[in-house]
């Protein structure tokens, strides 16, 4: 049965032989359909990429302008071999898409990539795709992951920043440079008046430009550097990738009252994760669906077969089989190896 499947886990990830392409391959292939531009989904060196315009802009920024990208608008159908391929919003980051694959005959598949069901200010809202076989991620596929209301989280982040600013303590939010950083900035701006300057790390800045180019509105920010440090110190906020935690670069922005550092991630739910990174605090804000979000998304597709990829694949798949009566199976990919959000 599995051997006849339209999409199979192979040497480079998920491949569709009938269409002659791979979805988010882990090593270079001639034809790659890309769900979104995070590093673990968009490998360099492929012959040709197919992606939404938003993802295409991010791919050019990340992999270089010379790559060959065919832009496919959300909802448009393109034929590859004997299958029709269309991309549908996944709500994860700018341009992120689910890949719907319809064969000449037989079941329709949809590969989710990474997705978030709750709408946010910086990614196109998730759209359920009716299909027969749904391939879902499971990054947060355990019932302990239930996100708090995101407006409340934005409010807490802003209060934390304000309290820090009042005691001349610079705030630093550690967030992935692609997607999370921009969402944090837009959410803060939506939560109220900002107490100081936002300074962003170079990697974040580059991607903010792409977001703005795609029409996403972000609050004012400066490139955090020696030249702007004085304006950031004390009352400002630094937005930087998690790898910058504890670096001399980040400490260079500390105000008279020092610096408060917080992680912004779904992992902040778990106490151990916060302690591990020796951070002061954590805000639970994720670009992935939480447990109820995953279950709801699966239900909305109407799919009776559900493939589970990267994350808590084993327990999630078992839950779908035993508690939801779905024909669920696991698919091995190398996505999410670095737990990149």
């Amino acid at each position: 049965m599995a051997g006849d499947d339209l999409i199979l886990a192979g040497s480079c990830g998920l491949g569709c032989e009938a269409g002659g392409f791979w979805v988010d391959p882990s090593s270079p292939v001639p034809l790659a359909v890309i769900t979104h531009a995070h590093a673990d989904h968009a490998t360099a060196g492929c012959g040709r990429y197919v992606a939404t315009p938003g993802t295409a802009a991010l791919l050019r920024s990340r992999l270089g302008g010379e790559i060959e990208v065919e832009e496919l608008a959300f909802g448009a159908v393109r034929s590859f071999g004997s299958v029709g391929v269309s991309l549908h919003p996944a709500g994860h980051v700018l341009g992120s898409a689910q890949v719907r694959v319809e064969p000449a005959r037989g079941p329709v598949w949809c590969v989710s990539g990474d997705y978030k069901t709750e709408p946010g200010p910086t990614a196109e809202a998730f759209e359920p795709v009716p299909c027969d076989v749904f391939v879902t991620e499971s990054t947060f596929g355990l019932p302990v992951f239930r996100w708090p209301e995101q407006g409340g989280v934005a409010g807490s982040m802003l209060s934390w920043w304000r309290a820090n600013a009042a005691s001349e303590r610079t705030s630093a939010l550690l967030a992935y440079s692609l997607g999370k950083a921009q969402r944090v900035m837009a959410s803060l701006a939506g939560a109220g008046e900002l107490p100081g300057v936002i300074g962003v790390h170079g990697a974040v800045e580059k991607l903010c430009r792409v977001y703005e180019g795609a029409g996403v509105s972000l609050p004012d920010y400066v490139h955090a550097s020696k030249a702007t440090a004085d304006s950031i110190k004390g009352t400002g906020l630094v937005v930087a990738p998690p790898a910058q935690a504890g670096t001399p670069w980040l400490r260079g922005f500390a105000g008279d009252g020092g610096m408060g550092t917080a992680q912004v991630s779904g992992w902040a739910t778990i106490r151990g994760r916060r302690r591990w990174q020796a951070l002061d605090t954590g805000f639970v804000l994720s670009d992935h669906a939480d447990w109820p979000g995953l279950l709801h998304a699966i239900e909305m597709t109407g799919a009776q077969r559900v493939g589970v990829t990267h994350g808590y694949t084993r327990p999630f798949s078992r839950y779908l089989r035993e508690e939801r009566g779905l024909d669920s199976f696991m698919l091995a990919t190398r996505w999410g190896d670095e737990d990149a959000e």
Partner: protein
Amino acid sequence: MMRAFADLYLRLDATTSTSAKLEAVAGYLRSAEPGDAAWAVAFMTGNRPKGIASSAVVRSLAVERSGVPAWMLEACRDAVGDLSEAISLLLPEASAAPDACETGRGLGLRDAVERYVLPLGGACEAERREIIGEAWDRLRRHEVLVYLKMIRGGFRVGVQRRLLSRAIASVAGVSQATIEHRLAGGFDPSEDAYLSLLAGEREGESGRGPYPFFLAHSVQESAEGLASSLGDPSDWIAEWKWDGIRVQLCRREGETLLWSRGEELISHQFPEVIAGARGLPDGTVLDGELLLWDGSSDRPADFASLQTRLNRKRAPAEQPGLFEARSPVMLAFDVLESGGRDVRPEPQSVRRGLLEGLLAESREGSVRCSPTIGFDSWESLGEARGSARELGVEGVMLKHRGSPYVSGRVRPEAGGGWLKWKLDPRTVDAVLLHALPGSGRRATMYTDYAFAVWSDDRSELVVFTRAYSGLSNAEIESLDAWIRRNTTRRTGPVREVKAERVFEIGFEGIARSGRHKAGLAVRFPRILRERTDKRADAADTLGVLRAMLPSD
């Protein structure tokens, strides 16, 4: 309030900064009701109430309340690294709790303990389920986490005794030694006990504490190096560097107190030593090392057995028969107070003379004088140091004859001070074979590694130790990612990985062991560095390790 205590617990858990912990504890004590603070102090001193619920009861109730299957609860526990935390995240947010918060009056810690913890002690299973269920209805998520830790046994708050007594001392405005002494006999969590803990100092209550400890500098030179930096060997006294617990024994006004270097009072864990000090004159303070002495081999027992004794909360009954083979012994090497007089400014040689006057060098008794090592050249001392391993010591100590006893680790000026000349750790190149997730803060990463060396015929890799310290966070993260990608087999939480990566493992001691497949066990194993220059087939063999075993 229960909420304030749960916040304190999480703050202590989230930080490793001593000043932040101190501030958190002192802040809590200042604002808490005495009845609540009494319980908080009891929990922080490791005093646990009797009410204990079995994991089975807690698990089945959690499954019932959360609606997830039992196997899923276990999957969550594995991911979170802690059953109590996993349950607190799975339960629906309490319905009764928000009211309490709005009025600003949550449930007090004392009330919570009296209503939902203590009654568990005498309750049958059905009653326990009812009590725990009621608590869950009343408490918010992080309170549930702390409550579960309280009733599941082994509740530990992330604060050292020394830090707690410092915080209490700062709130009470008395010395830390006074608080240590007041806490020493155990603490009864009543409002009265808390108020007398915080009371002002009574006449004669101060002056029971230890002196600040004198710490040695480490030297790693060869014998020739010492010759040029330290000069004439006759200016120096040499002693063995014992591998035990540094202590000060204070005998004053007919009472004997044993203080650890953390200024914790540990008298009640070592009644044999206290008994052995009965003959010392009043007004005597000795500095030395506490060891568990193995009578049959006439050398110190391993550190682990001493640790077991130290961690015991209750005083062991004095049963001479039981500890005949291994009994705690203090090896004193200095006198700080003699005849009630502070003798620390006296030169080392004078203090040594005083010590030998108090304690004749002896292999008997539980307070002994640590012997000196006779040597006439740095080479001969080097030879003595070479025999340290067979004697079960860490190396040698060098003390300048003219040195006063000073506080802390004082940089040795030319020709003075205390120096420790330890043996180099032993090393072996081993292959990473299995990895396990860590616990607590490391629960979501593979940070617990098993290392193997080749069998003598190099036909198979044999695991000989586990190690988890020595790598930087960045190294651990990259190794974690590698482990996930290079797993060859999974058995429960254990991942077997490709035998590719070689690490230099350092350790202090090595002993035969029937419990380990390798037939030996190493002590203080740690990763020194990765041998990226070596392939797995070039790693060491068991024979290399066996050659390091002490001959017997």
